């Protein structure tokens, strides 16, 4: 679980079965475990109206466990970018009453939430559960480039190369934490880089 922090930082909960007929799950890697745990508490037939879109981790784990839930539709995607067109269409065509569940890394939850917001879904109606890596998606405030899977503090911007303090300040619209140059006042000060978001 991510530590408690400032108000703009998202707070994640525990997935729980919502009333309704249509359920869309988006998960990556260990997010699959959040779905399995929730399934144990779900009423019979819950997954008859469910779609699970899953991006497996590097070891391809948890695929069989999700298939065993027998969702109406099961889609394996190799990356979030490859899932994006399908997700946009699904959410764009969704009627009132679709329930959205996001589970896994903060980067996955944030980017799926971004698509949901663009489709007009209120963020407070979305179920989220953080599982797995604490790696952050970071926007460089200087060059505006996004660096994925940031695990260190400070972190180097993968676009402009500035050394950035990874703040807790978070934008849902950008699905990113803010990175601000950590040695802007004196570039010769180079603080040690530590593993902060394993």
């Amino acid at each position, binding site marked *: 679980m991510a530590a408690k922090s*400032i*108000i*703009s*930082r998202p707070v994640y909960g525990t997935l729980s079965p919502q009333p309704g007929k249509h359920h869309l799950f988006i998960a990556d890697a260990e997010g699959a475990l959040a779905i399995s745990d929730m399934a144990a508490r779900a009423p019979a037939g819950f997954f008859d109206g469910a779609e699970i879109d899953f991006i497996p981790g590097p070891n391809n784990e948890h695929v069989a466990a999700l298939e065993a839930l027998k969702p109406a539709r099961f889609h394996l995607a190799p990356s979030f970018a490859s899932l994006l067109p399908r997700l946009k269409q699904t959410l764009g065509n969704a009627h009132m009453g679709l329930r959205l569940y996001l589970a896994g890394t903060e980067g996955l939850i944030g980017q799926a939430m971004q698509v949901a917001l663009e489709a007009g879904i209120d963020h407070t109606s979305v179920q989220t559960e953080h599982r797995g890596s604490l790696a952050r998606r970071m*926007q460089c*405030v*200087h060059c*505006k480039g996004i660096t994925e899977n940031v695990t260190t503090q400070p972190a180097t911007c993968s676009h402009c190369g*500035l050394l950035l303090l990874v*703040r*807790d*300040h978070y*934008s*849902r*619209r*950008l699905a990113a934490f*803010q990175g*601000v*140059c950590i040695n*802007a*006042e*004196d*570039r010769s000060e180079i603080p040690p880089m530590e593993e902060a978001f394993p």
Partner: protein
Amino acid sequence: MGITFRKETFRDDFTFRNSPEHIRRFPFPFHEDAYMYAVNIEPHVVGPKGSVLENLIDVDEHYIAEMQDRALVLAEDPLRCQSLPHMTLAGWDLLELLMEQQALGYPEHFTLTRDGDRWRWINRPLGIDDTFTFGDTSTLPYGPMEYITRQSQGDFCILDQRDGNLWMDAGMVTTQADWSLDFDIGMNFFEWHAPVPLAHEKGIFTRALKFLTNIQQGKPARRLNWTMTINPRLDTSPENYHKWGPDRTTVTPQNVGDKVHLRVELQSFWRLPRSNGIVFPIRCYLIKMDELVTQPKWARRLHRVIRDLPEELATYKGLTRYRPTLVEWLSKLDDGSPTSSGFGPD
């Protein structure tokens, strides 16, 4: 009789100065010898002649130079001006407010004439004479918010009110004290203030939001905020922090008076009539230490405020690196004698 506009810069050679009359009207933000956050909001009503409150939208001798600096910032980074799609009507509200107020306060410089929806706006300092149809964006060279805020001093945030909260959904922000519109746009009141230390725990933002969501049309409110800036630089954005940050290492006992500036924001809050949004102008006033200490009361008081500022606030305001040098310099102007209460010079 009108304002004599100064030719000056807020970058490179930094020729910005205040005339003696403008030093005396500077909105000094400390009414006592100490500073701590408070919900210091009061009705925005007209103040004494010759003060920055003489008109509710203040235009001063820096007007033309500030508008030129804004144009330079926007040319480099158009993301400093953004408006989410549902905010166009609020932009028209703001255009009306700023045209009316500037024409009312400075008829020798600005004229607004209306014939139904057909409006003519004359801005003499900037050499603008445009006729357009109110509500029809295609009749202006920019969207309504961008058009009028390229002609108005200060930053402007337009807040949408819904679900009992205020949402930062549009803005023109080129003179900000280290916050990013591009990052914060779309956030609610608590989210965009999230990085501010101490104030959340004190319940400041909960009370401030309650006040702001109840603001009525025709009854604006205001508060002062402050920080310090090295060199008279308007664009102290986080976007360019790696460019202006090194300025903070250049303060020496010899150049404090010229380099260190008190930066005061006169923030006001206005209900907009058509959109029911709130516009939040953040008008920035700069004064260098050499100018400020020409008023002995301000010199004594600023010394005590900066010396005694809690460490967390000093860090948040970015003073840490040069605070000892500044306090030492100011201490020589503080004989320990009492200061009168209130903001004004003696």
